[in-house]
């Protein structure tokens, strides 16, 4: 019994091996198609990442470029020295300023992602439920802002939010407020800026998830006794979840490292890691410190999200 079982297993393994040997033919067309973007990412994402990582292990110096050499060698005297400086990383954890900046960035990013979701969901829902030509028009309107410079649009918001800006003028005229509201250079303005800027990144994945949903599912839910709000949480939201996750990741990751919006719309006390990075680079000219800040942000914030997203993608692949 056990003999025959064993041999059966062996047979199967042999068959499998054989199969692999034959199947393992290189498909050049496929290799090229997959290879070009991989090469591109390697060259322009992974290599610069390594460069930044290298700089983060050096010391600031008054030189060009402004950091010490990691490797030092003299061939005549046959000596190579590697000097790794972990001080930048240690300092990151010693000084509360950086921790605060990270936490504050996460807080702002989480909240603005949530607000973006709240604003984007009805928009995406309306687009998904609209028909034919209206849908095309609405989608175009969502994408249209990308045709103008992001920087210009943030400046436009400054005009809106400033003390004698359009919003304040309007509110004063209709008499809701007696004196202008201070909106510019507050966290409020930062939230507005982030929600506004990243809205399309939330709307589009939500739309594509909602568009696939069969409308009779909602009728079925109603028929089985659930009110419209219940139906939303029991049917619409679960089915839109892939879109919700994709949208949140697309908004959260860039929002964490956002620099322009807090710099232009935020106040002096708006602490975000993107600004800290900028200051380290351009005000302190401490490239190694700035690099360490960037690496830690990537490892602590972005990497876990990417991994979670990746594993979910595999789970849903049915």
């Amino acid at each position, binding site marked *: 019994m056990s003999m025959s079982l064993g041999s059966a297993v062996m047979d199967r393994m042999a068959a499998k091996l054989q199969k692999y040997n034959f199947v393992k033919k290189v498909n050049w067309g496929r290799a090229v198609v997959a290879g070009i973007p991989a090469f591109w990412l390697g060259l322009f994402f992974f290599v610069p990442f390594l460069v930044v990582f290298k700089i983060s292990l050096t010391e600031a110096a008054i030189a060009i470029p402004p950091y010490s050499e990691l490797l030092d060698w003299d061939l005549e005297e046959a000596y190579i020295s590697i000097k790794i400086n972990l001080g930048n990383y240690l300092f990151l954890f010693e000084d509360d300023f950086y921790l605060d900046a990270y936490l504050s960035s996460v807080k702002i990013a989480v909240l603005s992602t949530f607000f973006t979701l709240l604003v984007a969901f009805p928009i995406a829902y309306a687009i998904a439920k609209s028909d034919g030509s209206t849908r095309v028009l609405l989608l175009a309107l969502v994408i249209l802002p990308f045709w103008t410079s992001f920087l210009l649009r943030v400046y436009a918001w400054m005009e809106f939010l400033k003390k004698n800006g359009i919003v304040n003028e309007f509110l004063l005229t209709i008499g809701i407020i007696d004196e202008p509201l201070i909106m510019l250079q507050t966290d409020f303005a930062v939230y507005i800026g982030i929600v506004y800027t990243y809205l399309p990144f939330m709307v589009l994945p939500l739309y594509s998830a909602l568009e696939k949903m*069969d409308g*009779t*599912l909602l*009728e*079925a*839910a*109603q*028929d*089985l*006794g*659930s*009110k419209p709000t*219940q139906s939303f949480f*029991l*049917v619409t939201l*679960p*089915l839109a979840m892939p879109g919700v996750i994709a949208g949140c990741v697309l908004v959260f990751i860039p929002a964490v490292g956002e620099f322009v919006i807090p710099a232009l719309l935020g106040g002096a006390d708006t602490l975000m890691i993107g600004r800290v990075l900028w200051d380290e680079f351009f005000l302190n000219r401490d490239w190694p410190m700035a690099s360490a800040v960037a690496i830690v942000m990537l490892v602590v914030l972005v990497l876990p999200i990417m991994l979670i997203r990746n594993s979910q993608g595999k789970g849903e692949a*049915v």
Partner: protein
Amino acid sequence: MSFSEQIVPSSMSTEQLPLWKQEGAEPFLRIENVTKNFGDFKAVDNISLDIYKKELFCLLGGSGSGKSTLLRMLAGFETPTSGRILIDGVDMAGIQPWERPVNMMFQSYALFPHLSVADNVAFGLKREGVAKAEIKQRVEEMLGMVQLGHLGKRKPHQLSGGQRQRVALARALIKRPKLLLLDEPLGALDKKLREETQFELINIQEELGVTFVVVTHDQEEAMTLATRIGVMNQGIIVQTDEPHDVYEYPNSKFVADFIGSVNMFEGKVIQDEPDSVQIDSKEAGTTLFVNHGISCAPDQIVNVAIRPEKIRITKKEPEKGVNCIQGIIEEIAYMGSLSVFRVRLASGKEVRVTQPNFTRSMGDRYTWNDAVFLHWDEDSSVVLTS
């Protein structure tokens, strides 16, 4: 049999009568002058219909006949433009779909893709706030009834079409609705499965005693399932009758033609007795006798309808020369169980005749261009005045 049972035949016989034939029986579902307009289009045009408890009523019609719209109004997804719908005596106006004692089985099944089979079935009970233990027990019971007890943990996309259909049925039945609406319940199944499921559906309906309203475009489905059929065309119900009556006594050309196939001969009424008529038909080339009376004006143009299977085909002239016409076989289709003949008459009219294949041999069979006699009994045909 006891004596007491024998002496009350009259009351017994009324009890045997189906509800819709009883005088003054209370309908369970009453549709009163219901009209539904979509813009200028009248989807449902002033329909009145009574459906009784435990009936399996089929709304039969082609696409665009308004049958689905009527069903959706019963479920509450559409509001009638005018008219009333009463379920068990309660006016449904203003009652939302989630408040109605009605459940629906959707044509696409509309199973929730993110929920397991058991959770799909439990959905309705959870909304009612039924206790967990009871939900579990009732879901198990229901899945057992549709023979899916072992698949409760699967997701809908892991099921076959037939299994999904059963889940949809179980989900619609679990709340024990007074009225179950079924939109083309067997439409997505293949022929074999459809036939099996038809009988299963009837068994379940009888077991639970729920009133079913089924929408279908498939006349065969309607014939096997229904206690009564309502034939719909262009927003109105053309005829409401038991399947047998709809087939044998259609009330109009439309119904005769829509259900099964039929030959029609146009002609003029030449003799109109209370229980028989004679019709002179140029198309048939002879005078046709029909042994039921009709109400019509003298000399009115009417149609005599005769089903293909009721026509006999012979090479020799029959002795009784009533309702006998001559023609030439133009086409023969051998279908296994029966053969279909297309016979051309002298008038140019084409007549369809079907005959069961009694024997296996081909020896005495008819062939193309054979001159044949077609004849039928006086009570086989029916006169249609509209």
